[in-house]
């Protein structure tokens, strides 16, 4: 499958650099993601995968370069004909398009599964409790947790927590969904139930998905494109069959064989 890049990418990273002090985490990284695309981001630990998602979620600021969503700068805003760093109002407006799920779920422990899912819609989108509850219950049903709606996170297994976290993110109707190793903290036997929820999510909810994952089999199965990150740069990107079957980069090849050996 050729790379299906539309005229207007949904997400664009344009020579994005992220440094912490002297440590260069992302090094002039460029990448486009098409609307509705399901992208898997793979690469060695510490290569900068999480940082890409955190920059997109505006949890971190870029050191240099521009990220845009639908052609509109995320990290910057137009000012006097040039670009200035985004202010808080701009960030809040842009965040309405983006949602994220974390490796360690980060559910709100003082709220039930349902309360976790209606908090954003009520507080941010201004929905009524009735409306928000209806939406949240639909999503909890979709992830198979309708009957756990009244439980607090402590009573849920890891797989259930992550499914609630996915429902919580979707309740905000994001256009771009960021998934950061959502199965890494899970016991092997519950990974499948989370992957099952992710499968087809982009089509069902009209989402553009960027998924950082170590589940190579799953990435191969569901991705439109796979991006291999190495030392803060895109080392190689392509269709899953090509990346997993016939990688052009020696580093990609080495990484994949190391991962496959490790199981």
């Amino acid at each position, binding site marked *: 499958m050729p790379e299906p890049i539309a005229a207007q990418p949904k997400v664009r990273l344009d020579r994005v650099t992220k440094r912490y002090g002297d440590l260069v985490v992302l090094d002039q990284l460029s990448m486009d993601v098409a609307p509705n695309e399901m992208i898997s981001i793979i690469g060695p630990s510490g290569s900068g995968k999480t940082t890409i998602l955190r920059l997109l*979620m505006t949890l971190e600021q870029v050191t240099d370069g521009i990220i845009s969503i639908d052609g509109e700068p995320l990290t910057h805003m137009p000012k006097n004909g040039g670009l200035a760093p985004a202010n808080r109002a701009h960030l809040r407006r842009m*965040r309405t398009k983006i949602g994220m799920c974390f490796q360690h779920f*980060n559910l709100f*422990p*003082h709220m039930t599964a349902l309360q976790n899912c209606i908090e*954003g819609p009520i507080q941010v989108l201004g929905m009524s409790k009735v409306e928000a509850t209806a939406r949240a219950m639909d999503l909890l049903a979709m992830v198979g947790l309708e009957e756990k709606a009244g*439980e607090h996170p402590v009573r849920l297994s890891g797989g259930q927590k992550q499914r609630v976290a996915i429902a919580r993110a979707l309740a905000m109707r994001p256009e771009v969904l960021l998934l950061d190793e959502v199965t890494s903290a899970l016991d092997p036997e519950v990974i499948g139930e989370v992957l099952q929820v992710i499968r087809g999510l982009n089509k069902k909810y009209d989402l553009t998905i960027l998924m950082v994952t170590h589940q190579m089999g799953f990435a191969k199965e569901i991705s439109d494109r796979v991006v291999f990150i190495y030392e803060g740069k895109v080392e190689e990107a392509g269709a899953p069959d090509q990346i997993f079957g016939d990688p052009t980069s020696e580093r990609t090849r080495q990484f994949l064989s190391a991962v496959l050996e490790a199981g």
Partner: protein
Amino acid sequence: MSYWEFLGEYGIRFVSGAIVTAEQTVPASALAIGIPVVFGLMRLSRSFVIRSAAIAYIEFFRGTSLLVQLYWIFFVLPLFGLTLEKFAAGFIAVGMNLGAYGAEVVRGAIRSVPHGQTEAAIALNLSPATRMRRIILPQALLIMLPPWGNLLIELLKGTALVSLISVADLMFAARQVNGSTFLSAQAFGTALIVYYVMARLVVTPAMRATERVMASRLGRT
């Protein structure tokens, strides 16, 4: 005179003293809880001026003696035109002093809520104020309850100093009884016991009960 005879004779004075101690403790506690929430949040503010004001307050009240603060409020402020009645001066000094310690408890508790909670709230696009009110503070509250229990006991004991500006509290009663009877062991022994009973049989169980209620509200049981 047996101790029972002593109690029969002077017990009523200790009772009325203990009531005044309770009357000092309640408004002082209200101050000591209200002040920290405000100053603890100010301490975490983005604004340098607000942060500095909070730090100055906390430093001043923690770094100087409660007794000196009490004397300032009662004897010195009137020279600047602010006269407080001794009862008010007492609980205000105690409340403001313990409130400074409480501000550090609030700040510490807020900061010990895992950062992932804030990040998840940002990912849901909650405003900074909503994040604090709906996500961080409810979790911080549970963390700060045990240290609050200790602080309130400190506060109860700290109120003994108000006897030095002649508020007729428990300590004041003990000193008076001692002055007229010279039965020091009985007088101050009784004061010790009553303070202990108030701390351990009233404040501590009340805090434990609050913790239980909060924990069950937050689904932690």
